[in-house]
């Protein structure tokens, strides 16, 4: 693996770790048998800068960035999921 590929892999692993920590901290509220996850020292950048910033970006923008940055798989056909109409609640018959 080249240095750049190794750096990308390390960055992805760290980013995923901290995004997951943030998610579990929010979701564990109201789940009595859970524990406070262990907090490492020196995670300030990830916790205070990266995670809040990432959370503010809408999902479609994130997806576009991931594609542009070639973070998504190449050489694969995306799954065929028929385009759907936005769902609307059923209307009562007139």
């Amino acid at each position, binding site marked *: 693996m080249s240095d750049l590929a190794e750096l990308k*892999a390390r960055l*992805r692993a760290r980013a995923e770790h901290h*995004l997951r920590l943030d998610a579990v901290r929010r979701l564990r509220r109201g789940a009595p048998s859970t524990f406070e996850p262990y907090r490492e020292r020196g995670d300030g950048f990830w916790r205070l800068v990266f995670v809040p910033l990432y959370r503010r970006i809408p999902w479609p923008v994130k997806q576009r960035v991931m594609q542009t940055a070639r973070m*998504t798989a190449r050489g694969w056909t995306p799954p065929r999921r028929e385009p759907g109409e936005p769902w609307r609640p059923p209307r009562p018959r007139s």
Partner: protein
Amino acid sequence: MSQRLIVIGGGGAGTAAATIAKRLDPSLTVTVFTEFPDIAYSPCGIPFVHGREIPKFEDLFLSTVDRYREDGLDMRMETAVTDIDLDRGTITARNTHEGFDKLVIATGFHYEKPDVPGANLDGLHYVKDIRAAMEFDKALDAMKRVVVCGATPLGVEMAGNLGHRGLEVDFVDEGPWALSEVLDPDVAEPVHESLTKRGVTLRFGTKVEAFLGGDDGRVRAVATSAGELPCDAVVVCSNKLPNATLAKAAGIEIGTTGGIAVDERMRTNKPNVWAAGDVIEVPHGLTMLPVRGLTGAHAYAQGRTAAFDIVGRDAVYDPVWIPWGMVAGDYTIGGFSLGETLAQAIGVPYVLATGVGVSRARYYPGAQRTHVKLLAEPDTLKLIGGQVHGGEGVKERCDFLAFAAKRGATLEDIAWMENIYSPPIGALFEPMAIAAQNGLTALAAEREQVTT
């Protein structure tokens, strides 16, 4: 002249690629190299032998080396491949070069070694090789207390089974609940309850700081952020990392997860070289982001895809929706694609549909509650993930939901799905349909409020 296929690795992906390629094209000379003395056994069954749910290790063997030889494969057991030279088309094993026309790399995974003092002590056990498991099982008879490190799927199985065997088990993980990388906290609750009933002490939110040894060089305790845990042995159930060193040294492209990057035919970036199983990464069906460390069923299907391509037949492996399931303690859990935890971590928007049904007719003996949680896209209501827990039928529901999501099914589709009603095997109301109906009702009320 017949072509020679070399397969490196004798796990699920390697044996699938070798046997299917040979079956499809009998003229092919197929050689399998594996560093282990055994082949075609199920390592996934090991925790259940330790827990005495399965009587003996021999039951885990599905075939023999001789059987593969009878099928025409050249089996090189206990033979590690140390080098791949793609320019010359050779591999090196036992200081001998062997030529190939086509190559499959199915070198599997290894466990991440804990980066703390004492990680080389005796008494730290990794669950992988069946012979090491047999030795460990004998030693367990004389043990009283074991620490299981890592609340991964394997960790949960080992902790639950060692507890079932009557050992005192401390189950340590930095995360807030069991399987917190995939499982949602509401589903973790019954898992914790079941493990605790089996005598497992949960020590989550706890970091392993060192393994402490005695004068004999054997582990005697684990130092953690919450104090010292005396033990007779430690079972390390850390993350699985791809064994991609050989591939990397040969110049084969490695992806962002550290696994070999392949296309939908399991081809690497080098001509006539395929890869499959735990050593590769494949895209997730929803995000198209590469993921790795999937199941034996995935490995087998990937090996099969590679075999088809090797013999010139058209086969394509789809991005994955990852149906998964397991027994945690005495409780069955499962899911597909994303749960709430992962969806929130990645930032994928979703709406929820939840419901509880029964696995058989309510009056039929053995009926169990089945909990279903579905995640769907907020606008189209297409399924994007879910988790199912309870008793029987979890696996089948997760398999079905993963397939339904892959084909673009919506909550509306699930709410109106047909289902089998037969008292011993299925209730009148299907739990998945109940969840979807509940979700639609809640959404209709919510959106009605917005429009009025």
